């Protein structure tokens, strides 16, 4: 993932983290299904926190894998 100066969710309020939109969440998950750490994702603390809860919700609904093979 390329390095950007500002958290992309702060820069663009239109982009929202939502468990109902797994396509956006997928950008912040490794191909094994792990959540990408903040230092890699370049997201601010607040949005990384949202990312965590939304990814976990999406996993419950089988929209994202807990662990991909």
């Amino acid at each position, binding site marked *: 993932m390329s390095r950007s100066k500002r958290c992309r969710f702060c820069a663009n309020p*239109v982009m929202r983290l939502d468990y*109902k939109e797994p396509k956006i969440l997928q950008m912040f998950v490794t191909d094994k299904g792990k959540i990408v750490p903040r230092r890699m994702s370049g997201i601010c603390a607040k949005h990384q926190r949202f990312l965590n809860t939304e990814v976990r919700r999406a996993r419950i*609904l*089988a929209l*994202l894998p807990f662990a*991909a093979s």
Partner: protein
Amino acid sequence: MRHYETVFILRSQIAAESRKTLTDRVQKAIESSGQLIQTQDWGVKNLAYPIEKQGKGIYCHIEYQGSSEVVGQVERVLRYDEGVLRYLTVKVEKEQEISQKNKAAEVREEGSADVQI
């Protein structure tokens, strides 16, 4: 009054009849102490991992308002129905955040309008 949303996953081979009785029961559960805002059918989707040996499921999304008891009533209906693979209820954010979202949506619309020009 609080705003909730529930997503539930049904077996893909569920009979149309039992699906209808389930939605009716859910609706009744909501209307007993709240009100339905909207329902949405996401259709059949592939599951990211098998649930009860099922690879596919029908996703349904409902939004409703009511006191905290509504959630229990809705979830009780879903829990005891064999056609339901999984459900998740989430509290929808406070109005402030919703209005912020609407603002974001407006920005989005304006943005798209600009693109058209």
